[in-house]
């Protein structure tokens, strides 16, 4: 099957004012239909990479291309096809859930009938329909996470970028999200997400990159990387080798 790269990260580096690099020459490609897992220790550089992909973080070294557009030069074109869900979504506490979803739908120019159908569909899946009239400030962390996921799904992105998406989700919502990710992948969406949960990554992803101290220490398809071992064993082995 001929697939094209939706996300290309080329030699991306980022430092925070010191000699120590937060991310050091990271290069990877996420193709259409990929579910690409990005795993590593806390502080390894996962969020720094993901935030740069989302167009939130400025960077000087390297290039990030989304659907043929440069994040640096054409940020708007990139964001138009990307959905980003941070690990701890800071949503407007004093908006209601439905007001927030309408705000996102307005930004992406989604028609009224379309948004109504999609909000209903995804809010039902994540069981937050009843709470959509409440202020977001009254939501639990998990509910905010679910709302952020619904807001990401309603505009049918070509690239879905998630930072630790399963943290705070209940088992049913986690299962639903995984199902949706599979469904999106089948329709050609590229998914790039970070996680600590290796079991999830192993079951969900077709490609994996392991990052340590800002550098990619292993990357490839799940089969290439694990070679019959579990992802946990592969990760620990790669980590030990690198030390």
């Amino acid at each position, binding site marked *: 099957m001929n697939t094209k790269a939706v996300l290309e990260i080329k030699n991306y580096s980022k430092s925070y004012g*010191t000699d120590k690099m937060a991310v050091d020459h990271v290069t990877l490609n996420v193709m259409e239909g990929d579910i690409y897992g990005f795993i590593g220790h806390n502080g390894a550089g996962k969020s720094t990479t993901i935030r740069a992909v989302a167009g939130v973080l400025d960077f000087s070294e390297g290039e990030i291309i989304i659907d043929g557009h440069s994040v640096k030069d054409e940020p708007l074109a990139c964001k138009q096809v990307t959905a980003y869900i941070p690990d701890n979504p800071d949503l407007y506490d004093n908006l209601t859930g439905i007001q927030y979803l309408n705000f996102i739908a307005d930004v992406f120019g989604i028609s009224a009938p379309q948004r109504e159908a999609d909000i209903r569909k995804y809010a039902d899946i994540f069981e937050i329909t009843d709470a959509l009239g409440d202020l977001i400030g009254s939501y639990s962390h998990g509910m905010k996470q679910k709302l952020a996921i619904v807001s990401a799904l309603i505009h049918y992105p070509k690239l879905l970028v998630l930072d630790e998406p399963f943290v705070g989700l209940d088992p049913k919502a986690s299962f639903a999200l995984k199902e949706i990710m599979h469904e999106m992948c089948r329709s050609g969406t590229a998914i790039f997400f970070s996680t600590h949960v290796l079991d999830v990554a192993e079951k969900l992803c077709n490609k994996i990159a392991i990052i340590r101290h800002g550098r990619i220490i292993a990357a490839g398809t799940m089969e290439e990387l694990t070679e019959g071992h579990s992802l946990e064993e592969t990760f620990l082995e790669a980590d030990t080798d690198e030390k």
Partner: protein
Amino acid sequence: MKNSVILLKALLLSTSRKNIYRHTTDRKKRRKIISNTIGMLCLYLMLVVYCIAMCAGYGTYGMIEAIPATCALTISILAFLFTFFKTNGYLFHFREYDMLMSLPFEARTIAGCKFLYMYIESLPWYGCISIAMLIGYGLYAHPPVSVYPLWLILSLFLPVIPMLAAAFAGFLIAKISSGFRKTTLIQTILTFLFVIFCFSLRFIIDDLFRNEKIQATLESSSEITSKAAGIYLPAAWFAAAVTRHDILSACLLILASVFLFAGIFYVIGIFYRGINSALNAHAAAKEYTLSSQRQHSPVVAIALKEWKRMSGSTSYLVNCALGEILSAILGIATILIGFDRIIAVVTNGAPLDTSMLQPAIPFIIYFFIGMIATTVCSPSLEGKNYWIIRSLPIEMKTVYQGKMLFNMVLSVPFMAFSTLCLCISAKVPAVNTFMYLVLGFALCAFSTSWGCVCGIRHMRLDWENEIEVIKQSSAVAIYMLPNMFIVMGLTVLVVFLGLRISHILLAAAFTLTAALLALLSYLTVMRLAKRKSP
């Protein structure tokens, strides 16, 4: 354009009291919204009454033609100051930055909408001034009917240019500091330097203006307008448009506002992501080695935490420590220039025996130190982290004691330094100096504990942006405004009483009063700590 409207609408809705009232099921929250709205309306009313009274004064002395320029200058100065202190927090370094930047908005659209949001939020204040002065002007000057709509329309543009100037200054400070590793520290230092520069500038202009005003008042009141115009062009355009129906001036004000807005936000947009990335970044520490650690009591631990909270936030530091810095500058200035000369400048060379002002020294210092106590906003500043202190095995009174200890540690050394400087410069006898130091200490204790009472009573944890509690919360308004006015009154009273009563006796009496009030406030804090939970 369409996206700007969508974003602006969302920003306004996300802080709208009406929206919260309509959708919250929390009755306590609803009651709070109602009382806050009533409080704000009272403040608006006070401002309107004050402005009309000012116009009456101008009208009585035949200076009514100066009102348009005065209105323009008042709105401009307020707009500049309010915006400058809010830029870091509203325009840069705000909480929902990641969410907004990941959406398909141009960086300049986000920055521009944030600015417009600040403008719309502060518009009721400027509206009150403008409408009240228009009423005053209408009553005394009897202008043609066309002046009324023109005044109202142009008033909408009056705050724009000073707000843009303040936002641009904030942008420059953020841009420069983003190039350094210690971003917050550099940003704070630059902000302080800029504030001090503005204060000096205002003082110099004010001094020039005042000298001219005396003469101008004798000659003709329109002279004042032209002097104001010489200093600040938009005020001149407004005055000319209103008093002389100068359409060109009206157009200049509108066009300058619009083009400056477009130009400034084009520039800000270019650097927006870079600045915010730097401001939000926490420099990666070099290899840390665990060395010997020190144990502190819970009260000291809370005080130290408060210090870290303050030093990590430019907004908190600039807004709360400004009084302390200004008092220190005043102290140094009096030593360098001399108490008599400073008084001569302040009183515009009035023939005064400066020794009669000596009893006012602790109150002059307290005017700055008590400008805002960190205890006013610190309970609210816990925000979403409130759970941390609530879940600790310590009583709430310990938490408040820690916060009060921090405020005392911050304010007392500045108070002592400035009081000593003023006393040395004014050649105050040693015993009096000691008494003024004790009085200063009592005033600091009062400011700390009363600030804490206001902070606990009007605690607000559900803020979107810390500026909301540092700069414009009801706790701050309730603490700061009466505090400032009462201190101004006390300064006059103490000078008056000092002519009749011994200065030492006077200081002792005020010390006792301040100490008693501090004690009462402290006991209130302890009582509130037992029963108050948000």
